[in-house]
């Protein structure tokens, strides 16, 4: 495996870990954006150009904005309250569970015979082919996803919009 992959992995994991641990919401959001960018880089490395740019466009461009807006809309004062026992307990439980999952995953990955030979140098897939796939065998799925996105965005607007005085509890 190449150095590039190693670097990418380090960026992704580092950014993600820092994001999950940081006390400052904005920082963790921005760090997560970094992690997403790293994932896009990984896709590039793997030769999936289109997916990489899509990932960048969707996550770095759009989702990050939604997240940041949400953070700013739901901010309450300085986020430096002392951590009470309940959340310590939750953190420990979470660590235990996550560790368990990780152990199982590692075990299964290491235990399974995955030493496949490398296929010939990464033959990326051209946008042309992707488009043909999208419009050919996967056209129904594409349509459904389109409808899903529309419905989801409308729903999001309806949910987040300031509701009329009469139906506030």
């Amino acid at each position, binding site marked *: 495996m190449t150095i590039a992959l190693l670097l990418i992995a380090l960026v992704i994991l580092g950014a993600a870990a820092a994001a999950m641990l940081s006390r400052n919401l904005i920082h963790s959001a921005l760090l997560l954006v970094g992690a997403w960018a790293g994932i896009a880089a990984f896709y590039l490395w793997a030769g999936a150009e289109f997916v990489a740019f899509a990932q960048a466009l969707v996550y770095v461009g759009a989702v990050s904005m939604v997240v940041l807006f949400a953070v700013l809309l739901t901010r309450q004062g300085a986020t430096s309250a002392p951590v009470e026992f309940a959340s310590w307990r*939750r953190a420990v*439980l*979470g660590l235990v*569970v*996550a560790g*368990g*999952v990780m152990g*199982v*995953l590692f*075990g*299964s990955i290491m*235990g399974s015979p995955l030493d496949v030979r490398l296929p010939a140098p990464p033959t990326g897939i051209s946008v042309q082919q992707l488009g043909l796939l999208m419009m050919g065998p996967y056209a129904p799925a594409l349509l459904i996803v389109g409808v899903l996105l529309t419905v989801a965005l409308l729903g999001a607007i309806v949910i987040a919009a300031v509701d009329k005085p009469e139906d506030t509890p």
Partner: protein
Amino acid sequence: MTLSAQHLWLIPVLPLAAAGLGALTPRGGRTLAAGATILTMAGSLLLSCLALAGALTDPSAHQVFNFAWFDLGTGPLRLGLLLDPLTAFMCVMVTFVGLLIFIFSTGYMKEDANAKQFFCFLSLFAAAMLGLLVANSLLLLFVCWELVGLASYLLIGFWFHKPSAAAAAKKAFITTRIGDLGFLIGLVWLQDAQGTLLFYDNGAGLLESAALAQLAQLLPCGLAASTAIGLLLFCGAVGKSGQFPLHVWLPDAMEGPTPVSALIHAATMVAAGVFLMARVFPLMTADQALAGLPVHALTVVAFIGAITALMGALIAVAQNDIKRILAFSTVSQLGYMMLAIGVGSWVAAIFHLLTHAFFKALLFLGAGSVIHAAHHEQDIRRLGGLRGKMRTTFVTFAIGMMALAGVPFLFSGFWSKEAILHAAHSWEVSHLPLYAGLTAVVLTAFYMTRLVAEVFFGAPRSEAASHAHENGPAITVPLVLLAVGAVLLGFLGTPAFPWLQARLLGETAVHGHSLLEGSGLMMLSILLVAVGLGAGWALYGRRLRTQAEAPDPLAVRAPGVIAALANRLGLDELYAATVGRLTFGFADFSALLEIFAWDGAIRFLARLGEFTGLVSRENDEGALNEGFDAASRGLRGTGLAYSKAQTGDAHGYLRSLALGFVLLLILVILGGSR
């Protein structure tokens, strides 16, 4: 650059688009609607000219473009477009006259509130009419035929707030529908007999020798199929073209706005019947060779045409409404065309159709100009003295009148009428149609003279007439153009150089013969025209009417006849008494049946249902409910017990989810290792 049959669909589609646009524009958008209507019509005119050029490159060929509409049981149902000189000439005529009339309407409907709707309807009509012309399939033709009827209905009833208009619209719709019923039956019969409705399908079409030979077989009922089918189709033509006995709707249709009368009920739509006959002419003549028939299809056509021509002219003499006079003259002219078809010269019929379209549209628009100027005063007795006030209208109207009356040599009506009379003369079956035609010539000249004398000469006999003045260019320019057409068009088909007839018959060479041959008949008809004009002038011109209430000089001489003619030989009353009465009687009968027979039965069933419902409700409450209650109580208990697990703590859920995943994976791994 010519238009081939493949692109013919563009011609009707353009006005259709205009109609759609008009339907979408808000009520106020009259300028938009009118502009779209006129522009698209101009486009169609251009395309039609291209199509004409394309058709004249090889007049004898029938260029067709057939396509499958949808699959119907055994085979596809095929429609098609047809381009031959007949279609091309008709298209050019319809688009040209239509364009002029649209322009005229912009002036005529200026004050109307929902003129936008009017233009929308006009476009719809134009689209349907053009579709009818380019159709290569009897089915497509029928569809457009009905659409034309619908547009006519909408436009006659355009001023639906007038009860008379609404009634007239209804009458027109129902009367034509009676004829269309025959048309539909004939169509179904054809489909059943031949399996196709295409006219020309290089060899397999209806109007091609194979099918015709098959249709011309003698049926057991002693009648050729083609005869019966032809007569059924003729029913449709009778209804649409206002032939006797279904002519009654046409005069009433004059309730619509005058441009509508000009376009639909004089120039184009009513001519559709004649066009249909000309189109299926091979079918009509299929039985000619057959001996031993009681009657040939064409004979019926000829006599119906003759009767209509004569009767229309007669009734027109005694009318007083300017538009009704023109309407009855339209009836009689259509009779002429049918007569020509019947005596076997469909070319003459089409020639007369084209010329008639021009001068009759001209006459109607002239009448419209008068009516518009005279604040909707339509009674010729109350008009008068407009000659000086409305110079352009008078001159153009006079030209149209002379064309209609058939004043010799200069005017188009003369040549086309001559063609018809010659054809009738050379018909060997009978000469009665010829005599009817000749009589109609006299009458036509007579009542047109009367009309002009009453309207334009003498002194104005009402407020409105005395204040009338010439209209704007939007109204006068179309008049002038149409007048030019009404004069020039005749020279396309003079006996000396019958270019039009030759092209229609698909010949490229034009061999005319001298004017003098058969000139006896021509002299006779010229004489008759002179007689008609003279009589008209003698009765109405010399001693001009002075006040509106003065009695009609003719009515003074022969009151009985004139009264009978004035209420149109009582045909309307006759129909009301017979057909109408019958219909009402049947309606009452079925109403009684409804009330007493069916209603009672239904009531009984309802009672039965109520009773069973009562019974079942009793045992329901008694027996079943208890058991259900118990069961649901148990369910509620268990549900409560389980719902304790739902703590509402999302973290908890997620945690248990992950743990479950871990356990599953461990099981899988163990299973895999064993």
